[in-house]
């Protein structure tokens, strides 16, 4: 279990994360959503000790996580938003470096590495230096590297950014598989449909503060499960309804430039954040 208590991060006068409180259960697939600059990456960075909080703490299984906490850190793997790896190493060397940093047995790690690279379609590129890989391939290497350690907790900061649609779907399947093995996953993403498809619960944060926290479906139901989009002089405007008949009645009265659809998590997000992000 991950407990985030009163987590705050300030950079000078700017507060990136503002007294955030969250509890993430073991085995949960948890989404952290927010517009650009909301504090998602800063939160993930504090959850991985890359940044230290100005106030508050992160606990893993009851133990405070800090840079000395090797036992807690051995449970963690992180996929950062940036390609955080040695650009002049080959894929094989990146994986070997990870094995050594996590002190994994050589034979077991080699087998796991072969399996992951095969799954990601990277086997034939393993002698290629990271610098010479495409953005999507670098992302896949980072995912393989993170999964090599078979972590109990996986922190994913925009893991599918830069991936094509097919690769993204493959990655979703992989994440579902590993989550099925009781791995706790914390995901930040700009792809709201990704969070809706994968996450058990999502937290919407804006300006570093928690706005909403619930299951995607509960958040949608709270807003209204039915939406009517109207295109007018002011652009596209959506209205939300709890009752289907009420929505259809409104649609009938709205004229031909209106359409009916199911509410999505993105609607919840836009209403909450006040701006569209994807």
């Amino acid at each position: 279990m991950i407990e985030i208590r009163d987590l705050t991060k300030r950079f000078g006068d700017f507060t990136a994360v503002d007294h955030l409180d969250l509890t993430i259960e073991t085995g949960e697939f948890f989404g952290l959503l927010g517009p650009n600059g909301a504090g998602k990456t800063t939160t993930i960075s504090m959850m991985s000790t890359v940044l230290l909080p100005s106030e508050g703490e992160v606990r893993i299984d009851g133990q405070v996580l800090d840079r000395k906490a090797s036992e807690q850190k051995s449970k963690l793997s992180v996929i950062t938003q940036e390609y955080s790896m040695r650009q002049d190493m080959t894929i094989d060397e990146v994986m070997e470096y990870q094995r050594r940093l996590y002190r994994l047995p050589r034979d077991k790690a080699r087998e796991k590495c072969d399996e992951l690279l095969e799954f990601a379609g990277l086997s034939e590129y393993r002698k290629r230096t990271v610098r010479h890989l495409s953005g999507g391939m670098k992302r896949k290497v980072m995912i393989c590297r993170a999964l090599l350690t078979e972590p109990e907790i996986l922190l994913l900061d925009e893991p599918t950014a830069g991936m094509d649609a097919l690769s993204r779907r493959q990655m979703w399947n992989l994440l579902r598989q590993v989550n099925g093995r009781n791995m706790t996953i914390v995901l930040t993403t700009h792809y709201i449909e990704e969070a809706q498809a994968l996450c058990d619960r999502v937290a919407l944060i804006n300006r570093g503060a928690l706005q909403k926290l619930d299951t995607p479906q509960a958040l949608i139901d709270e807003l209204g499960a039915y939406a009517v989009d109207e295109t007018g002089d002011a652009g596209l405007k959506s209205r939300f309804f709890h009752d289907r008949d009420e929505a259809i009645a409104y649609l009938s009265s709205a004229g031909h430039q209106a359409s009916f659809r199911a509410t999505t998590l993105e609607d919840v997000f836009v209403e909450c954040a006040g701006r569209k992000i994807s």
Partner: protein
Amino acid sequence: MGIITVLWEKWVEFRRDFYKITVSTMISPLMYLMIFGLGIQTTSHGEPYLHFLIPGIVAMSTMTGSFGATAQNMSVQRIYEKALDQVMVSPTPLWQFIIGQVIGGSLRGLYAGCVILLLTSPIRTDLIFNGLSLLIMFLNGMVFSSIALVLSFFAKTYSDAPRYTSFIITPMSFLCNTFFSTEQMPAGFRQVISLLPLSQASNMIRAIANAERPGFIGFVILGLYLLVFGIIAVVFIYKKKNL
């Protein structure tokens, strides 16, 4: 274990860039040796100037080799590649990472010094370089690796590493007993320069080269530098809020 991991990473880098590292290690010292030692042929204390210069160049090479390798590597990893994040997140104790960096950087300095010794070996000088010389070169390299580590934690941009070289390494190269003895400097300034690590390393390597006993105080001063900067580096990596 973490120390071995960092040394493995350094070895991968060294193996890949072997020719580039070796050639870049040789150029400046060779120029100094050719210009000041062979071109402008002069004497110092009744001896050929080359006898004075070679130990100084060896000490200087260990400094530039260690400092350059560590400052460059850490700045790139921390600021540009963000590869340091991978280490920060891992369970490898960070003090082991620091020791690995210091030893790894020092080995690069030692390599640079040994290349110079190899290049100057055909010149008949009767200078002595033994195991103790290598130990001093290694210690000097560790001192400058630890300084480079601390400075690289302060670096805000990728271009800060070359700036540190301009502000710290270049003045030391010229002032600290490499090309002329600190004894010729004005009082006050002389004492300050004598306390700098390169002055001590040059002094000791030169003493051994001339079949004299190196002063024990040099080891103490280098050890103190290593201890202070090593501790600062460890404290930084554990406590600095925004690495």
